[in-house]
């Protein structure tokens, strides 16, 4: 049963990826004739036709799409105009920096957000009121502004950490903290509301009747039952982190794919933009596939479906 579920999930992911490829292809197609960007305005009509034939632009649309898809499957997203390198190698070179940033922010979000939600749900009263206040603020503050304020406070006024750039742990702290705030707010809210429900369940009363320590009841019995929505959301959360990372990377001059995309935007380097967007979509689909697989491991009920 479990195999078929996973297979269905994979097919589903494949269908989504085809959609992603159609969307990126269609948008890139709307950029107009790339030949006008590639050749000088004085080039003759014959040269233009030759160039179009060389790029496959004289083919019907569906053939062009299939060509694009065929290249994409082989990891070929064409050449960047500005860097004169293959798009795939450029994106892959920047990917570790983005993953490091998003991964660190994610780790912070999990290690702060989950305990925060548990404490708020079990202590009640002032704890949940404080969390509510904090998470409302966390959701409203734009991450790039928070980044600027942290730079102002920590780097410009207190001179504790470097302002921007890429290197050791000191460079990572501010961007990762900045990026994690919204995730902490969302995760802690989710955990708090889930825990409130779980603490009223019958198995908690049973655990209490058995005389288990309250500590163990909360952190083992109740929390485990809240984990499934948390993991499902964690997959989506990583996608959100990758998306917000674009702006945070610009604030801190972090050399990830977000900054690559913004550079490409400035130079109107469409193949580079297209490749970046497509590969980001691919990453998101794979992450969520992994989240589904983890859910099936945590919750035996999900293996039956």
């Amino acid at each position, binding site marked *: 049963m479990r195999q078929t579920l996973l297979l269905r999930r994979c097919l589903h992911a494949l269908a989504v990826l085809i*959609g992603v490829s159609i*969307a990126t292809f269609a948008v890139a197609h709307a950029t107009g004739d790339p030949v006008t960007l590639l050749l000088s305005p004085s080039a003759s009509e014959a040269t233009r036709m030759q160039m179009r034939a060389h790029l496959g632009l004289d083919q019907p649309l569906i053939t062009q799409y299939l060509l694009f898809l065929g290249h994409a499957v082989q990891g070929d997203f064409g050449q960047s105009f500005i860097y004169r390198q293959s798009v795939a190698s450029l994106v892959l070179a920047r990917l570790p920096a983005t993953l490091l940033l998003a991964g660190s922010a994610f780790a912070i979000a999990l290690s702060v957000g989950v305990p925060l939600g548990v404490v708020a749900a079990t202590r009640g009263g002032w704890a949940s009121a404080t969390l509510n206040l904090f998470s409302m603020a966390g959701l*409203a503050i734009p991450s790039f502004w928070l980044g600027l304020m942290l730079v*102002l406070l920590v780097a410009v006024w207190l001179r504790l950490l470097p302002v921007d750039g890429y290197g050791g742990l000191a460079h990572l702290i501010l961007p990762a903290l900045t990026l994690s705030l919204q995730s902490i707010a969302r995760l802690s809210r989710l955990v708090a509301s889930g825990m409130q429900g779980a603490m009223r369940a019958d198995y908690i009363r049973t655990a209490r009747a058995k005389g288990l320590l309250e500590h163990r009841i909360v952190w083992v019995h109740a929390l485990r039952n809240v984990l499934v929505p948390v993991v499902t959301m964690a997959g989506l959360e990583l996608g959100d982190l990758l998306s917000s990372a674009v*702006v945070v990377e610009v604030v801190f001059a972090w050399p990830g794919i*977000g900054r690559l995309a913004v550079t490409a935007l400035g130079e109107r380097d469409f193949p580079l933009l297209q490749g970046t*967007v497509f590969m980001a*979509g691919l990453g998101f689909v794979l992450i969520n596939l992994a989240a589904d697989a983890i859910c099936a491991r945590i919750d035996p009920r999900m293996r039956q479906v």
Partner: protein
Amino acid sequence: MAPYPPTRIDLRQRLLPPAWPQPGRPAHLLGTDNVGRDMLSRIIWGARISLAVGLSAALLGAVAGSVLGLCAGFFGGAVDAAISWLINVQLAFPFTLFAIFLLAVFGGGFLPVVGVLALATWVNFARIVRSQTLSLRAQDFVTAAHAVGVGAPRILRRYIFPAVLPSIVVVASFSAAQAILTEAALSFLGVGVDPTIPSWGAMLNLGRNYLQTAWWMATFPGIAIALTVLGANLMGDWLGTRLDPRAR
């Protein structure tokens, strides 16, 4: 409402600190920017763009998302599969990257930005409307309406739409908040609405270059964004408890 025209340049008055805490000019409550424009006036004018973009994007997304969600939930089968596929494809894109890509191709400006932001918000509506329609369709009053020969468009309009409307209103509130935040991020990256119009995101982008010398330039527009988004989120929470019959 603004004390000065937001675009009036006065080079003699540039980079003035706010009236408080340092001894600034009381004439410019929040100080002036690098070419002497009054910060307070620009923030007040920036509210127009943020609110206009946020509300239009939420509205456009609400219409498109609700219609698609209703169709998906009500007709099921291939229609549902196609619309669910669209939702999942949309969700697969890290949105900021996708928005940059779209705006790079189609150019900036008010309408393109609203259109791109609506791409982010329609999914919120489509998902919730679809799931609610699915459960409503199985209810007795819909079956009864079917049985007495009421057509599908009329059932959707008279029976299902009024039942999902409260959720649409709540989601619209959160979507407006999301759109305002995203618009600010896009303006910050330089792909927003016309850069000559004062917008909070563009002001932050400018203020970023003066972080060391003029902290107020990057501080106040951000506070304006945070308060607006907070307001929209709180309204969503309030509407959610108000419109939910069980919570009353």
